[in-house]
C-alpha cells in the first residue's frame, strides 16, 4: 500500500526556499509542481497551502515577488530569493541537517551502546 505523508510544519517553507534557490524565480504553480516532482507521490500537499507560506516569507523579507509573463504567456506572480532569503535558507538547512543527524544517531543507537 502506498503511503502519503502530510507535510511537517515548517518544512514547507524550507522546500519553497530551496526550490527558488535551485530554479531561480518561479511562480506559485511552478513551485508546487517542483515540490511534487521531487517528493514524488510520497508527500501530500494541498497546493493552496503554499500561498500563506509564500506570504509569510515575503513579510519576513526572505522572498520578493512581482508580476510577469509565464511560459505560456499567462500573467503570473514570480517569487525570487532575496539576500536575506539565501541566509535564511543556509541557516534553516544547517538546522535541519543538525536535527536530522541527531535523530539519525538516536535510530542507530543500540541497547549495548548504552550499557
Amino acid at each position: 500500500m502506498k503511503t502519503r505523508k502530510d507535510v511537517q510544519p515548517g518544512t514547507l517553507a524550507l522546500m519553497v526556499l530551496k526550490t527558488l534557490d535551485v530554479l531561480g524565480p518561479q511562480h506559485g504553480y511552478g513551485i508546487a509542481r517542483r515540490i511534487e516532482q521531487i517528493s514524488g507521490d510520497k508527500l501530500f500537499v494541498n497546493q493552496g497551502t503554499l500561498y500563506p507560506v509564500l506570504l509569510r516569507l515575503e513579510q519576513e523579507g526572505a522572498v520578493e515577488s512581482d508580476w510577469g509573463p509565464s511560459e505560456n504567456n499567462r500573467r503570473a506572480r514570480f517569487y525570487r530569493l532575496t539576500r536575506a532569503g539565501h541566509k535564511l535558507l543556509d541557516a534553516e538547512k544547517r538546522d535541519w541537517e543538525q536535527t536530522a543527524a541527531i535523530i539519525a544517531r538516536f535510530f542507530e543507537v543500540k541497547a549495548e551502546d548504552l550499557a
Partner: protein
Amino acid sequence: MRALKRLLTRIRNLAVGRRGDDRLREEMDQHLAMQTEENVRLGMAPEEARRQAHLKFGTVMAVREELHAEEVLPVLENLSLDIRHTLRQLKRSPGFTATVIVTLGLGIGANIAVYSLVDAVLLRPLQFRNEKRLVQVFEERPALGLTKDTPAPANYFDWKRRNHVFSDMAAAKGDIFTITGNGRPEEVDVAPITSNLLSLLGVQPLLGRSFTADEDKPGSAVVLISAAIWQQRYGSDPNIVGKTIHLNGVAYRILGVMPFGFTFPDRSALWVPLALTTAEQAERDSHYLQVFGLLRPGVTLQSARREMTDISLQLEHEYPATNRGLSTSIVPLREQLLGGSRLATFVLASGVAIILLITFANVAGLMIARAANRQREVAVRVALGASRMRLLRQGLAESLVLSVGGSVLGVGFALGSMPVIRHFVPETIAVWAHPEMNWTVILFSVLLCATATLAFGFFGHSAAAGRPQEALSQGRRGSTDTRQKLRSTLVTGEIALTIVILTSTGLLGGTFWKLAHTDLGFSPDSILTMRTELPVSSQTPYREFSARVSFYKRVLDGVEHLPGVKSAGYTTFLPFTNSGGSTTVLIQGAPALPIGKVNDVGMRVVSPNYFQTLEIPLVKGRTFAEADGGDKVPLVVINQKMARQYWPNGDAIGRQFRFDDPGTPWMTVIGIVGNVHQADVETPSRAEMYLSYEQNLGIPGYFKPRDLAIRVAGDPVNYADAVQRAIWSIDPEEPVSEVQSMQHLVNTRMENYVLEAKLFAFFSCAALLLSTLGIYGLISYSVTRRTQEIGIRMALGAQREQVLSSFVAAAFRLFLVGLILGSVGSVAATRLLGNMLYGISGVGWGVGALPIVVLAASIAIAAYIPARRASAVDPVQALRSE
C-alpha cells in the same frame, strides 16, 4: 528581528486596511488555470481537468482565510468585533451595565478625590527644600508633665556644640510687634530667628537677602517682611529692600521679602535676628526657643535620638539644678507641622482602601452573577463550536467596555468633586496646599479597577465555558439551586462586609466628631475677641500697673456700654491662643515637696466679668467683684481640677497658697470654676488659677491681660468696628489685633478634627451608597432572573402578595445572616481600631443603626420592585421569558 518585521507589516496592513486578497485570488485563479491546462494536456476532459486541479489545490476559502489570518492581526481585528458584540449585549441588560459602571465610577471618583486631598495635605512636600532631613527638637520633663516643651537657650547652644548628628541647628522664638507709622498701627506675629534658620530650611527670600551671622547680635535693627505685608502695606514696591519700617516705634531696615505663603514658624509676618545677649545665652531655666535641626545625610532619626539622649544625660550631670529630669525628643518637622499626620494618613488610606474594597466586591458580585446566569448561553455557544479562546476574549471585551465606562465616569465625578474637596483643606495650610487632579492617581485608580474588572470577568467566563455539558444538562433556568446559592452567598458576604465597614468608619468618624464637639468648658458662640497688647517698655505710661488697670477699666466700661454688648472681660490669654502661662505654687499646710518636684499651675489674670462673658460655670463660692481690687488680701479663683488635685476633701474654699518665691503673700481661694480646654481639645485641662487684674502681686509682664472677649447679641463680627473705635477713643495709639469671633478662633484650632470627621462622613456615605448600589443590583438582578419561576407560581394559582412577600422575606433572611456575620466582624474591627478611638464607646449602636436601616430598606426595595414587576406580567409571558 524577523518576527518584529512581520508584526509591523501586519499592523500596517490592519491600519491601512490593505488586503492581499485580490492579488491572491488572481494568483490562485492562474494557478488553477495552469493546473487545468496541464491536466488537459495529459488527456483529461476539460471538466475533469478542472475538478482535479481544484482537488489538488484544496479549499480556496480555507486558504484565503488562512492567508487573511497571516496577513493581519486577528486578535486586534476580533477585538473590535467583540466590543461591538459586547455593546449589543450590554444594551440588553441596562440595569446590570448601569450598576457596574456607576459603582466603578463612584469607586474611582472617590479614590481620586480623596487621594488628591491626601496628596495635597499630607504627601506633597512642604515648601522647604531640605524637608526630609528637618526635625524639631524639644525638651521633655515628664516629672512636670511637660512634653514637647520649648528648650532653654543654654541647652540649645550646648546641643549645637556637642552633637555630631546634625549638619546644623537653628532656633527661633515667638514675639509680637506693632508696625507703627505709615498707616494704621498693626500688630503682627514676629519670629526672631538665628541667622542660619532660613538656609537650614532651604528657603530663600523672594527679594533681597537673609541675615548674616554678624547681624544676629543685640541692637541690629534689620528685618525680613512677609510677601503679604509687602503687598498690603507697600503695594508690592519693587524697591522695598533697604527701606525703613517702624516696629514698636524703632526704625528697622528691610533686608528682604520672604516668598508667598511662607509664614514659618506659625504665622509669622516679620523675621528679625534672634540676637540673644550673653546673659540670655546662658539661661537654663527660661524655656522659650523653638529648636530645629538638619540631620546629616544618612543619619537616622533613631541615631539622632540616641545622641541627643546622651547629651541630655551629660547636661543633667553637669547642671543638676536646672537639668534634672530633662530629656529631649526629636520630631520630623513635617509631622510636627502637619499634626498627627501619621494617624490621619493611616485613616485616609484605610478609607480609600475601604471604598476600593466595596467597589471590588460589588463588581465581583455582579460579574460573577452575570456569568452564572449566562452559563447556559455560553454552553450552547461552546456546543455550537465557538472556540473557548473566543468566548474568553468576549468576556474580556465586556470587562474592558465596563471599566472604560466606569473610568470615564469616575474621572468626571472626581473633577466635579474638586471644589468640594478644596473646602476640606485646613485654613492654616491653604496657602500652599492645593488639591488637584493628579494623573498618576487617575492612572493608578483606573488601572486598579480595570484589572479587577478584567479579573472577575475572566474568572466568570472561564468558569462558564469550562463545563458546557453540565450547564446544558441542567435544563431550563430557574430550576437549579447552585447559581442561586452563589448569589445568596455573594449578597450575604457583601452585607456582612458593608456592616463591618460602616461600623468602623462610623466609629472613627465618631471619634473625630466627638473631638470636634468636645465640651470646651466655655461657650464660644456670640463672642468677639481681640488682642490689645500694652507696651511695657520704659517710654510708655503703661509700665505702671495702675495705668494698665485704668486702661482695662475704661475699655471694659466703654465697650459694655455699646448697644448690643452683654458683657466684656479681659484675660491673659483666651483659650486656644496660648497653651503656656503657668507658675509654681506652695500649698499652705502641705508637706514639703521632694527635690525636683513642683506644683505647676496654669495662671490667667482676668477681669471680674471674664467668667460670665465666656460662660465658664461657677461651681462653688464666688468669682471676683469690683470691690476686690486695691491692696486687700490677695484672692484667687481656681478650677475644679486644681481644687480636686490639692484639696481632695472638697474644702478648697477659704484655703491658701502662694507663689513658690520667698516673700510672696498667701492667696485665699474664693471660688471654684469649671475646667476649660486652654490648649486644644486633645489636651486635658490642667490645674489652673485665675487672679484679679486689679491686684498687684508683682506677676511678670507676660501674664498681663491682653485678650478682650465681648459677649454680644447677634453676629460678633458686626461689633468689630464699634469696639475698635471705643478703644481708640481711650488711646488712639493702641494697636488692636486678631479681631475675630471666638467661634472662628475655636474653628481654626478644631479644623483638623472637623476635616477628619467630614472625611469620614464622606467615606461612610460613599461606602453606604456603593454597598446599597451593589446589593440592590445583585438582588434585583437575581429576582429578575427568576421571572419564569414567578410565572410558574402565578400560573399555579399563587397570590401576588404571597409571591411578593416570599421574595422580600427571602431577601431579608440573607440580610439577617449578613447582619449577624457583620456584627461579629464589627466587634473584631472595633478591637483592632481600639487605640485610635479617643474615649468613645457609646457611639457604637447609634452609628451602627442608621446604615443597618438604610441597608434593610434598600434590600427590601431591591427585592420588591423586580418581584412586583415580574408578578404583574401575564404568567404565560413570564414562562416564555428568557
